[in-house]
């Protein structure tokens, strides 16, 4: 088995200790850092994605694999120019104004990160102006808004309106989610997408960015 295959297997096994030592060994041996990511770490994570979809792996196992992958990436990152870092896409995510719930949002963040997305989590109780500021600052492909309360979900439309006003609406895809949210509501306020759960949110982002 090559070091690349071993590293991929280590990621599949969710062995973050192993990922650290093997990645370091490969760096020390002069392996191209981008190859370590693309042929080792990502290859393993892609297998995890397939197995998760097929029902052979569950979310906590995917989390361990993602953690193993990140452990390796942290080591090679300083050796790669920012512009060369592979990513599935950049997403800004937050819970809307007046709402402090974030367990669902955190799940979405974890799932997306494990799928290779770069996530900027701007927190809870986020008003439209802060979303706009984050879009200007981070220039993401997607922004995600979360709400658990029927009283706060209305502020999602305010954020979309604020983005329109700033001329930023067409530069990002907007996705929304949370217990009271429906596809009908997403259509009504002019969001680009809605996902009923964290795994579906990841798929949705892939589709919207592709």
């Amino acid at each position: 088995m090559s070091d690349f295959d071993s590293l991929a297997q280590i990621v599949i096994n969710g062995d973050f200790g192993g990922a650290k030592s093997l990645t370091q060994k490969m760096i020390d041996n002069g392996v191209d850092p981008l190859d370590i990511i693309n042929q080792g770490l990502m290859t393993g994570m892609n297998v995890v994605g397939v197995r998760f979809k097929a029902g052979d792996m569950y979310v906590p196992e995917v989390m361990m694999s993602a953690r193993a992958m990140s452990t390796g990436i942290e080591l090679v990152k300083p050796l790669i120019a920012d512009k060369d870092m592979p990513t599935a896409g950049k997403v800004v995510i937050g819970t809307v104004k007046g709402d402090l719930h974030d367990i669902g949002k955190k799940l979405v963040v974890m799932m997306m990160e494990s799928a290779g997305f770069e996530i900027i989590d701007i927190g809870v109780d986020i008003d439209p102006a802060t979303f706009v500021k984050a879009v200007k600052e981070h220039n993401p492909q997607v922004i995600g808004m979360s709400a658990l309360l029927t009283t706060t979900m209305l502020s999602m439309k305010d954020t979309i309106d604020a983005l329109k006003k700033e001329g930023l609406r067409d530069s990002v895809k907007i996705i929304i989610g949370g217990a009271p949210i429906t596809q009908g509501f997403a259509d009504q306020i002019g969001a680009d997408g809605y996902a009923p759960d964290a795994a579906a949110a990841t798929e949705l982002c892939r589709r919207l960015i592709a």
Partner: protein
Amino acid sequence: MGVGSSHGNGLFFRTLSEKQAEEIHLASCQILEETGMVIYHEEAIELLKQAGALVENGNRVYFPTYLVKKALQSAPSRVTLYNRNGEAALHLEGSNVYFGTGSDTMNYLDPFSQQRRSWLQDDVANAIKLCDSLPNIDFVMSMGLLSDVDPHMINREQYAIMLQNTIKPQVVIAEDGDTLQDIIEMAAGAVGSKERLRQKPLFMVYTEPTSPLQHPKESIDKLLIAAENGVPTNFACGGVAGASVPTTIAGALVQANAEALSGLVIHQLKAPGAPFVYGYGNSPLDMRTMQAVYGTPEAVLFQGGAVDLAHYYGLPSWGYAGCCNAKVCDEQAIVESTMFTVMGALQGCNIMHDVFYMEFGLTGSLELLVISNEVIDRTRRLLKGINTDKEALGVEAIRRVGPGGNFLGDEHTAKHFRKNWRPELSDFNSYENWSETGSKTMVERARERIKLILETHQPELVSEEVKETIETVLRKAREKFGAV
């Protein structure tokens, strides 16, 4: 107090041994003392500090074990809820079991159109009216989140509807302290005065920490208002095992117990002896779908553990029954909800809510409510156990009938058969008779029952004076929020 539940004629059930209960208790005390809680409430922090708790970084509070012990000593071992007419209705103590609905489902599964849609005020009024007529539904919660009132008025309008459509006691959800004050105002109006309400509480208020280990300001506001006014309360989060509490049943119990006890400590510091109902929920995270699901075997066992801890502490217990993850009232709905109901009853959980919940609590089904009414009826018979007095042993009757005889013609049968359980909704007909009456499934018969009850049942009305009090409270609140 010992663990376990004693029902009729020696029927006994327990989930934890005494030793296990103690292990969990000690582990929870360790969490309280060493890990502590973050509390977003100045008055509560001050109360705890005065009592000897250690406070770091302004709001991280570490609870010494002696504070837990002290709170357990002052909390009453029994709580009584009264109906609107001031009659004792629910004796939350020992192994008594009571059942009621849940609150605030997003969707109403309309039994007539079979559409899943938003709740309107009339729907909630009908649902509460139905509860009023069902003999095994002992208390009500708000059932549906109103879509046709101002968002800030929802809890107040729900309470007004509950108060006017049933005399049964209620468990209420309040958005914040102000909402709770308005609800107290309406309830006091209905029973005569605030003093009367304190003496004979008509409702219990639901408050909860935010797991893991956080106490939001609004929750503590309500906890303290409840303590001050002698309104019974719990401090019971709906934990999500694998996300907000540990995935192991024991770990979930340790954390849940620590959070419930921390609420009890604050509550008893504010008003020693104020009524508190111990409990906690657990809807484990399904690791494939990422849904917090009801009534898995682990969740049912968790409740058994929590109820045994309540018995161990000598506190009344709060829990769940009759709820499920199904999307319509199908076989899964009945499997999950019935298992929870039967087990919860055996566990001796004093006050069980969420009967009628579908789809992880997002949807409510009146069909499930009516069918559960019969499941509870069966269960209540189970809890009476086996009578073994001389007459029940029937030695004389067996001698009389003798070999080859028939008990149908014997006086012993005529005298006692009515004590056995009989169905109202379950079908005991022959196939021919069943098909002659339309080959109806249980859920179809449940729908017919709902229709009949809504057409014929008239709940006891409140007086014009009470109506006016309720309307005044609502009007003032509507004006405050600019809602018309």
